[in-house]
């Protein structure tokens, strides 16, 4: 936790430095007539101060806290692999939405997501994914007229 905390606040500090540098490049105006960069400059200082504070705080955490880390057994260990897989699926959906279109992209996404959440019977997985795709297509595209990209399905419908 201490290391990740350090890394996170260090990362935010780096972002804060970049943010403040960019703010200082913007027209500042004066206190009477603040320019576009005036308020971001103040926000940048606040971000720098708080992220630096968090970094120092993380550095000051006693090493004893690390020693007292609870032992996690196999049954309760978090299954990080599932989270990584879901993150990959979300990225995949983002990349495939425009070329393949919503119906195919979401169907593939659902197939994989149901599987990631631990269901094993492929027949049911396929039926569930297809069912949800049809329901979402009718609800959002047909009924609510959300202009989701149709991709290859749109070409077929044309």
């Amino acid at each position, binding site marked *: *936790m201490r290391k*990740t905390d350090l890394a*996170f*606040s260090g990362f*935010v500090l780096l972002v*804060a430095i970049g*943010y403040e540098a*960019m703010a200082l490049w*913007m027209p500042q105006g*004066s*206190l*009477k*007539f*603040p*320019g*576009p*960069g*005036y*308020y*971001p400059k103040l*926000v940048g200082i*606040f*971000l720098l101060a*708080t*992220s630096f*504070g*968090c970094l120092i*705080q993380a550095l000051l955490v006693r090493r004893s806290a690390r020693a007292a880390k609870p032992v996690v057994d196999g*049954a309760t260990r*978090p*299954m990080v692999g*599932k*989270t990584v897989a*879901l*993150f990959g699926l*979300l*990225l995949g*959906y*983002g990349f495939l*939405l*425009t070329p393949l279109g*919503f119906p195919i992209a*979401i169907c593939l*996404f*659902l197939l994989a*997501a*149901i599987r*990631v*959440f*631990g*269901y094993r019977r492929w027949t049911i997985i396929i039926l*569930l994914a297809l069912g*949800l795709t049809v329901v*979402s297509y009718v609800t*959002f595209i047909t009924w*609510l*007229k*959300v*202009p*989701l990209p149709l991709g290859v399905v749109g070409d077929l419908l044309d």
Partner: protein
Amino acid sequence: MDAFGGLMHGFSVAVSPMNLLFGFLGAVIGTIIGILPGLGPLGTMALLLSLTYGFDPTAGMIMFAGIYFGAMYGGSTTSILLNIPGEAASVVTVLEGYKMAKRGRAGAALAVAAVGSFIAGTISILALSFMAPTLAVAALKFGPPEYFTVALVGLMIMARLTGGNLLKALMMMAIGLALGTVGMETVAGYMRYTFRQPMLAQGIDFLPAAMGLFGISEVLMTAEEPEENVSLQQVRFWELWPTSEEWRRSFWPMIRGSFIGFFTGLIPGPSPVIATMVSYSAERRLDKTGEFGKGAIAGVAGPEAANNAAVGGAFVPLMALGIPFTPAMAVIMAVLLIHGISPGPTLISDKPDLFWGVIASMYIGNFMLLIFNLPLVGVFANIIKTPLYMLMPIVLLLCLVGVYSINNALLDVWLMIGFGVLGYAMRKLKYDSAPLVLALVLGPMMERSFRESMMISRGDLSVFVTRPICAALLIAGLLIVLAPPIISALRRKNVGDASPA
């Protein structure tokens, strides 16, 4: 129109079949998400926001108010029957409610929670009816310095009250403020932090941020936890009626909880959660039965009343000032904004149908919740058995479609995924997302009012302390933020002085 006349007018708006239907839908959805752990009212409202494009704004507001109130009702069901709080605001109910269930008094606990919620809802809605118009009249005198101070103090209090580490909360607030500066600046049209991406010119919408930080991150967290089999305490309908002694012990806790909840709701921060904690500790202190910790009915009645009343209280700053003090209220405000309506002091006079209609519907919604929640408690409690492999993909589907439909833009999908990962990391590192989201919402308004204040005062920063409303707000804010650490430091010092050398 006076408050009573307004409320009567509101009832005439609220009882239209369409508004009743939306109120009912909201109440049912709210109850269900209140029961399901994880997906809270904020995430649900954020992902349903896209649906309200096609609605009348009054209907949208009515549905969302129903969701918020319903979530408070639903959360108590699983707390009492399963020892699982469906909602953060129901965590305290577990302490006494589940112990009552183990003693065979689950029915009484559920009935008291439902009746308490109804009484609290009624009191808070009446208080809202009278307080919001008064505050709105006062708010007409607000200028840019007052708006800047309200937002600043609101954020400070939010950072203080979210619990956990103050420095971390302040850093989250700073990130939110920084994200709020992305896009085209409104005075000179200057592009800031857009990296030549035209899509970023309109700034970062808070909805992808809220959906990512609260919805996607919740799914990512749930994915890595082993699924648990839940065993449900059965309740029969005839067991729902508490004894006269239980009613007697619940009455005053409900009333106290209602007032604690309403006034806590006026304060920025996770008001329903704080209200339940304040109410529980108040009841525990006042208890003379010695039942606390063993299943005290006052420990269910007070907090359950408090969390519902806090919802009514949280509507006051939104309706009267146009400033949301919680992320959930920011989503409710978005319902109005997408229909071109700006909430604020003139909302009550400009849109009386909407304002009074929503208030009256809250009352009707509370009544609906009371009527259908008790008989259907068994049905609702069984919802928690829905397998994750069905529930979570549906949540993701709604998030992915909902976020796209806000601006019909793929950028929002990417932003939501990005915020989802950020939210996951933040949860792991014990950072609270709420200050970030609220700062993102309030940031542009703060900048605008800061710049206007400086132009009005010719660059005199003392404008934020010399104007009476600003000064009063700053003093109140500083007291709330600084009083707890000072008091605890003094206590420690006193204990240190008193202890023998």
